[in-house]
């Protein structure tokens, strides 16, 4: 089984799963009664479209597999992504962002920004020089301070540090 098929199957599973879970929620969830049209009219329509889309993807996949033309499903020019790299950068950037923003709220905007920026550069940037690592984060910190604290005095809880 190649990657295209896996990808298509996963997409179809996502669409069908979401659609069916949603319909079950509509059936058994607590929806406040609304006048004339039920409160779930739009979500319900959306779920139907999701299920329809999922079935459509499955049908196309089946037809193309039968005709041995799976490659036709690939989008031209689409490269396979490196899943390990994306997993890592998602974890680092998105997970790191959670920590970063908690630090912003509790420690201070500028300090956290400099630190998070340094971490990101250190982990992500290829061939980064030590000098770059020392200079760029304080610059970004300064830019953030100028823009958000000086120019638009962003509203943040009182910070521990700067």
């Amino acid at each position, binding site marked *: 089984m190649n990657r295209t098929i896996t990808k298509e199957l996963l997409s179809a599973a996502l669409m069908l799963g979401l659609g069916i879970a949603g319909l079950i929620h509509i059936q058994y969830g607590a929806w406040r009664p609304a*006048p004339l049209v039920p409160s779930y009219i739009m979500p319900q329509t959306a779920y139907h479209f999701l299920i329809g889309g999922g079935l459509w993807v499955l049908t196309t996949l089946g037809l193309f597999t039968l005709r041995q033309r799976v490659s036709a499903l690939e989008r031209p020019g689409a490269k396979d992504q490196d899943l390990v790299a994306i997993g890592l950068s998602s974890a680092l950037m998105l997970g790191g962002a959670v920590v970063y923003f908690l630090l912003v709220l509790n420690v201070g905007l500028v300090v956290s920004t400099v630190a998070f920026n340094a971490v990101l550069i250190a982990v992500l940037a290829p061939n980064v020089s030590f000098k770059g690592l020392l200079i760029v984060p304080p610059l970004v910190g300064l830019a953030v301070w100028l823009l958000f604290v*000086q*120019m*638009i*005095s962003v*509203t943040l*809880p*009182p910070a521990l540090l700067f």
Partner: protein
Amino acid sequence: MIFKLSKTAVAVTAAALTFTAGASVAAADSLGSDPIRIVMPYGAGGSTDITARIIAANAAEHCGTRIDVVSMPGAGGMEGLQFVADATPNGHTVLMADYSATITQTLTEDTPWAVEDWVPIVHLTDWKPTVYVKADHDIQSIEDWVELAEAEPNSLVFGHADPLSLVHLPLVLLEQETGIQNVHLPTTGGGETRTMILGGHIDLGMTLPPSIVSNVNNGEVTAIGVFADERSDVLPDVPTFQEAGYDVSFEAPLLVYTFSSVPESIQQELSECIMTGLDTATAQRMSDQASAGLDNVQGMESAQAIYRDTTQRVKDVLEAINQD
């Protein structure tokens, strides 16, 4: 929010400006010199915003420090209330809102605070919910409306903003009082209601007077009744529902609150400096220009009395709705 951004503008043409934010040097008092933040749980540009900015511009020198206006519409306004509730209780973070944020939402939603946790310190003005129709509509008075609605229940479409908002609850009260029935049509707010009225898509709508004054004066819409004890200053020809013989009045006070954890002496101080600031000629001129109605600002006692009254009234209406 008075910003350094604007200070850049000031620097360029300082001569054009008569006032800079935070120009006054802080006098040493118990409030301290940190800026005061007025949080309003609505988007920028509405009538609350305008009023808050009038306070910021005029009360700063009397409160001894800069005043910033912060708009926090997130989570239906709940984030704004949360921010004020979580702030250090030193009186530097205050809330400005009508009752839908502090009373209705607190009673209908699962919130971490109770209605009593909000202590009103200034009573700025009362908004008077007003019912209006298109000028060429068959209904041109409260009597016409009730008559028509009694003859054919549920034939008239009534546009109001969000359900349970301050321009919806009075309608519910009136229907309880008179027994008439209308089709309730929620809209995104006063603007959409007015579009639908002007376009002839709906029959009646409810809004606050300043937003329809010009349409009324132009003869495009007719305001038929006001849910208040007295007529509105800006619409002096429009009768109240009480005058028409229906004992329904539901004014919406616009209040400034602190959270209950703020010491009483600071509450008192804030209340006084805001009131002094609004009592100046500049403040009154601004208020007139913007139809903000700040000509009868009341202090803590009046604010707390009207807050208790309103709470009771909202509770009654909500109970009645839940019984249906």
